[in-house]
């Protein structure tokens, strides 16, 4: 598994909001079921001293880290303040920063990620469902009942489409090591390449599914990294029928200036020798040949 395991002590930023509180509970129920550390602290400026589902809340990340030595953070802070929260977490030494928040202006995202990386922190997202290592750790909002532990890594720009694929895998008896939702924004922290590098060093992971979509070329970079590291992969790219210059739900899912359409991505992946599924339901059969 990558980025998180049973030992990962989690901080939640935006702990007292609806989403934050709801997912503190779900993350900790999951942690209990697998004997993991789970969420040990929360942060909401101005609400220090409270508790959310038994988890102590602090005003600042520094205070929370000093007392609880947290290694990962999940951010549910509203878009206007989320980039600041990413930088606050990085500044306090948190190494994995999962940003669930959607609609953060891209200039804020670029700055926050650049700062976090300069601190040696990995940002997952923004606009992502986080990650889940079955049997180890739920670091985000993925619906854990669909998951099963096993040798397949999944990296995806999507949320529900990932659950769809995970559901298909689990029904086919194929378990997952870690499923990472890297986010649907044009600028994201950890890309396919970063996750591929981590998976290639992970002894649990035998093969990886890349789930991409229209916009940019990060899938191609990821596939190149996998090939150079001898990590077996299969891919699926959503949006073959997406029109040009239209944002397809995700801020990053847009074919701009004639670049980033699904057909040309699929063509490039195939030219590199990567198997690309036409439909999500084909993925279990394709990945099972690589295990």
């Amino acid at each position, binding site marked *: 598994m990558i980025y998180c395991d049973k030992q990962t002590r989690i901080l939640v930023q935006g702990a007292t909001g609806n989403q934050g509180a709801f997912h503190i509970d779900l993350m900790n129920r999951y942690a209990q079921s697998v004997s993991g550390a789970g969420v040990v602290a929360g942060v909401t400026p101005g609400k220090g001293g409270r508790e959310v589902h038994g988890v102590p809340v602090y005003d600042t990340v520094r205070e929370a880290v000093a007392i609880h030595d947290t290694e990962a953070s999940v951010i549910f802070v509203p878009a206007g303040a989320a980039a600041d929260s990413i930088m606050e977490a990085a500044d306090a030494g948190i190494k994995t920063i999962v940003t669930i928040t959607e609609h953060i202006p891209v200039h804020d995202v670029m700055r926050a990620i650049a700062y976090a990386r300069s601190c040696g922190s990995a940002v997952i997202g923004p606009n992502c469902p986080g990650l889940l290592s079955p049997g180890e750790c739920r670091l985000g909002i993925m619906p854990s009942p669909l998951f099963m532990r096993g040798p397949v890594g999944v990296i995806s720009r999507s949320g529900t489409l990932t659950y769809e694929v995970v559901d298909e895998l689990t029904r086919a008896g194929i378990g997952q090591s870690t499923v990472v939702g890297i986010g649907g924004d044009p*600028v*994201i922290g950890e890309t396919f390449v970063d996750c591929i590098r981590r998976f290639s060093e992970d002894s649990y992971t035998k093969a990886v599914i890349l789930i991409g979509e229209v916009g940019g070329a990060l899938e191609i970079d990821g596939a190149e990294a996998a090939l150079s590291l001898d990590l077996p992969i299969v891919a699926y790219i959503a*949006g073959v029928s997406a029109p040009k210059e239209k944002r397809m739900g995700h801020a990053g899912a847009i074919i701009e200036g004639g670049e980033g359409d699904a057909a040309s991505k699929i063509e490039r992946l195939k030219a590199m020798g990567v198997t690309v599924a036409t439909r999500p339901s084909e993925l279990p059969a394709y990945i099972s040949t690589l295990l």
Partner: protein
Amino acid sequence: MKLLEYEAKKVFSTYKIPIPASTLITSVGEAADACKKIGGSVVLKAQVDVGGRGKAGGILMATADDAETVANDLFTRKIKDLTVKEVLVEERLSIQKEYFVSIAIDRSSRSPVILFAEAGGVEIEATAGERPDAVRSARVSPLFDEVPGFILRYLTRGCEKEIIPVISALYRAFREKDALLAEINPLVITPSGVIAADAKLIIDDNALARQGITENRDLTEREAEAEAHGFSYVELNGSIGVIGNGAGLTMATLDLIAHHKGAAANFLDVGGGAGSERVMYAVRLVASVPDVKVIIVNLLGGITRCDEVARGIIAAGVSQQVIVRLAGTNEAEGRALLEGAGYRMLDTMEAAVAAAVLEASS
């Protein structure tokens, strides 16, 4: 959101980027006066958001004598299906040399990238092929507020010094206006100095509010209505209405429809955790599209609860057939509700899509 040329130029001029003398007109009658005010020969440019505007007939030359005739011609034309409502009347520049400068966001390096070329207009690609050295690019760390001098010198080496402040200013506009793209093509050298002959500026939709923009003009009426409900919506031109949760799953649904040789009427992502009321609005919105014969609802419940979705579909009560695929949280309750109300619920998205395509073609 894309700004029109005159709006982008107005922004650029506040950053002290020189722009041509110009007047914006909205009727033929204003053309002659505008032309006289500027003096000499002018260029009339249709303010429409299309690529290849010049080739499509959206840019015409005129003098004071024929300004009205030319303006009439332009106002009555359609430029790639768009009617011309505003025309920018500009001084005709005496161009000695053309450059290209563009600032965009590079996803791979997660940073702004400046592209500069020693050629402008439509010849950039040819130049890039013939003289790769004449096209230069540089990333700027998002931690810098300004473009560092070494980058400016690298980009503009061997070129007129007066270009440097223009690139610096364009970068400041790019950052402060939350732009996804800030471009001048061509940036021209004239006897009176450097001038931005054209201008492009695209503002990040996630930053419109803090930029004081209340209405996103890039959206159609129905798309704007959908956005007000918190949906992501894109109009297409088929007959199968599509509702999903999550951008990826909804896109995959469209692709499966195409795979089965059907045609989707729209893309509607209801987002995460949609309750019955939101689902009801979504179904009604899609049903209101005239061409929609059948609607497919494909939702995977995580934080979204299937029973809530079922209630929403039933409450919408639309005349078209609604084919449903629901999986995940409270799936059994959702199924019982839907089947009790006579709706078709299928187990997989493939089966649901196949049924919808069949229904649409019957």
